[in-house]
């Protein structure tokens, strides 16, 4: 404990301290200084925010209240189960829907009857938002929901759904941020590189609006631009595996066969549109525009986009592929065949096949929760439902492991001195 340099430092500090104490006999100088400090503040510009009249622009990550996107909820009960203080109440019933195609089997579906959060119990930990696999729960920065009676703090799904309108899209990430094994950061560069005209337009439109949201598209493009060289430097670490899942997942995306896939596919983009809607700005529609642009550009838009964004990364990439044990596409085909032969409906078969393919890609042993989605990141509007790990979500964080392998050592080498 008592290292030599520590001792020396202690001596020095003690000496400095003594000096300070010597200043004890100042006879009123300190008092006058104190008076000067307070007097200076009398004439300083006041930074008080007069709350009910003026509202603070809170960050979009603010954990104010939990909003519910009702149509995304499949009553999987994960949130209620994971909640540390059991403040989520869910009631539901099963509903049988007629088969989609003639001769198909009637489908069963959970219908949400009641979704309530007791905010008197809630401790705002956000676990429910994290674990929700279907993007049904969001944090809103709303905070004015006080009630006169503690019982009224149990807010039902109507109120929770109303808050959906106040949910902001997540912020762009800080420079140098890299989601593990995922080259999503450059994704926004695609529209900016492809249709450069679209972004400035959105940008100028945004400038007139709320600064918080307006800044986002701009920073996104900026981030992409800045991040690129860095990525180039880290070329070997950028796993080409991501390309493949990206492509493959995109193939799946337009095929809304499985219920879960449907929900994600339909649910995700509108979420963004909706969340942006209150801002009502050009910026708000921007992500959606991006989304659409990406989606409309064909079957493998993300591949092209990615190719442009990551540029030279593409070439060295295959070398770094953490080779899956089986070829995912083969797995897909076999599973699809097996399933169809086993009598599953085409939709179910397709869904299972996809799951199997993803599993094969990742070498995952355990069955994952139905679908992991990347939440609320406008930078990746369509792609990556399967491969994208939720940045913070513990469950999602697990999958990208193999892809992440090559990332680490390089990072570690350059990290500390950087």
């Amino acid at each position: 404990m008592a290292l030599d340099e520590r001792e020396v430092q202690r001596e020095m500090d003690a000496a400095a301290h003594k000096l300070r104490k010597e200043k004890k006999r100042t006879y009123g100088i300190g008092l006058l200084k104190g008076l000067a400090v307070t007097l200076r503040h009398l004439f300083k510009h006041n930074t008080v925010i007069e709350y009910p009249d003026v509202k603070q622009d809170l960050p979009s990550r603010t954990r104010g209240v939990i909003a519910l996107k009702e149509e995304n909820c499949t009553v999987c009960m994960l949130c209620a189960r994971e909640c540390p203080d059991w403040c989520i109440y869910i009631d539901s019933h099963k509903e049988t829907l007629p088969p989609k195609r003639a001769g198909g089997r009637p489908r069963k579906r959970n219908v949400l009857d009641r979704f309530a959060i007791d905010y008197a119990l809630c401790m705002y930990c956000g676990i429910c938002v994290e674990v929700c696999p279907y993007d049904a729960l969001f944090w809103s920065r709303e905070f004015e929901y006080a009630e006169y009676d503690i019982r009224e703090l149990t807010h039902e799904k109507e109120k929770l759904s109303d808050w959906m309108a106040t949910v902001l899209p997540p912020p762009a990430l800080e420079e140098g941020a890299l989601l593990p094994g995922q080259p999503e950061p450059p994704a926004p560069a695609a529209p900016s590189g492809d249709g450069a005209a679209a972004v400035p337009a959105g940008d100028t439109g945004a400038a007139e609006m709320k600064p918080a949201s307006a800044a986002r598209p701009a920073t996104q493009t900026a981030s992409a631009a800045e991040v690129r060289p860095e990525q180039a430097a880290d070329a070997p670490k950028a796993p080409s595996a991501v390309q493949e899942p990206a492509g493959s997942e995109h193939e799946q995306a337009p095929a809304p066969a499985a219920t879960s896939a449907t929900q994600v596919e339909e649910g995700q983009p509108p979420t963004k549109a909706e969340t942006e809607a209150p801002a009502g700005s050009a910026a708000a529609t921007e992500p959606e525009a991006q989304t659409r642009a990406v989606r409309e550009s064909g079957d493998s838009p993300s591949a092209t986009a990615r190719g442009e964004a990551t540029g030279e990364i593409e070439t060295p990439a295959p070398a770094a592929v953490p080779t899956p044990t089986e070829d995912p596409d083969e797995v897909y085909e076999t599973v699809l065949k097996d399933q169809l032969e086993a009598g599953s409906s085409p939709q179910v078969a397709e869904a299972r096949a996809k799951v199997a393919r993803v599993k094969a890609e990742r070498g995952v042993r355990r069955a994952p929760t139905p679908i992991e989605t990347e939440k609320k990141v406008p930078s990746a509007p369509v792609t990556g439902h399967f491969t994208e790990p939720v940045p913070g979500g513990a469950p999602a964080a697990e999958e990208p492991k193999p892809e992440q392998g090559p990332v680490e050592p390089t990072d570690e080498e350059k990290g500390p001195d950087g």
Partner: protein
Amino acid sequence: MTQIRTPEDVAREVAEGGLATQQMILNVGPQHPATHGVFRLLATIDGEILAEAEPVIGYMHRGYEKLVEARDYRQITNLVSRMDWLSGFNNELPLAMALETLMEIEVPPRAQWLRVVMLEMNRILNHLMFFASFGAELGAITPTFYAFREREDIQLAMESATGGRMHFGFMRPGGLKEDVPRGFIAQALKSVRQVIARLDQYEDLLVGNEIFKQRTVDVGVLSREQVMSYGVSGPIARGSGVSDDVRKDEPYLVYDRFDFNVPIGHSGDCFDRFWVLVHEVVESARIVEQAIEGLPAGPVLGKVPRVIQAPEGEVYVRAENPLGELGYYLASDGDRRPYRLKIRTPSFNNVSVLPEVLRGTFVADMIAILGSFFFVLGDIDR
């Protein structure tokens, strides 16, 4: 107020048949403005002298150590952040470190550096709070408002990253929940630099003030020996000249890469404790600046299994909380929940030395001493 006698004097006078005034038992708390919560001090006073002071704790006992045995690790992370509510992020760290040790998770460098940034910002938050409350306890209410203004800036930066203002819940075994948003670094740097720039003024307001010196210098002296025998840690121990700082002694995360000093007091009085506190703010700010400067790029979450399930084993991890040494002794039987989590909180040990320090002081000094012990009730009772 010239009737100044120690308990021994009173006893002697009574024995001699002299004039003995009655001793009075004064319950300071459990609801008292100077105790920052439900802390009770059973004070036996003789006039304005404290003959005996016995801290009574436990009014806020929430049974954390038992509670966590029924929670999985993700939930515990959010629970322990509420233990010492002024330094939530610092509370979460040792738990994550314990799990990382048991599960052999490697934390990506960016996560480590970001953790340092936020830990030190949280330390500044905590220290500013005590800067504020100590002034208020001595009757100077203005530092409170200034310190809260600074706190607000840092808190906003933290909120933009974590979404929380006090309970961040941002720590994950293996890294952080997610990366910080764009603009966070600029905001953090600005807010921290602002604190440093303004700290001079605040020093004028308190540290240099004659009345403040009168109230704190040579008041409530805590000797090195007492520090050692009671296991006092943190700024209080350092105020008495004990240079214990886990960040230096057993560098965790990447603390060994930063250049910072550990301010050390000399005489162990209230002034020294406060002085150490104020100067730790400066050092923390230096660390934040360095950490931001050298922040590497990369992921913020290492390879973490889906279900956090510590393998069978035991580990004790300690870290430097703003208030002292925080240790988690984690015993796992391989379940998703800890078999036992023993928490060694700094405040608990720090207040245990109070009776020794308080004996024979004035009632007014008692307030100064209580204020200079920088304890958080949740941290004591937990």
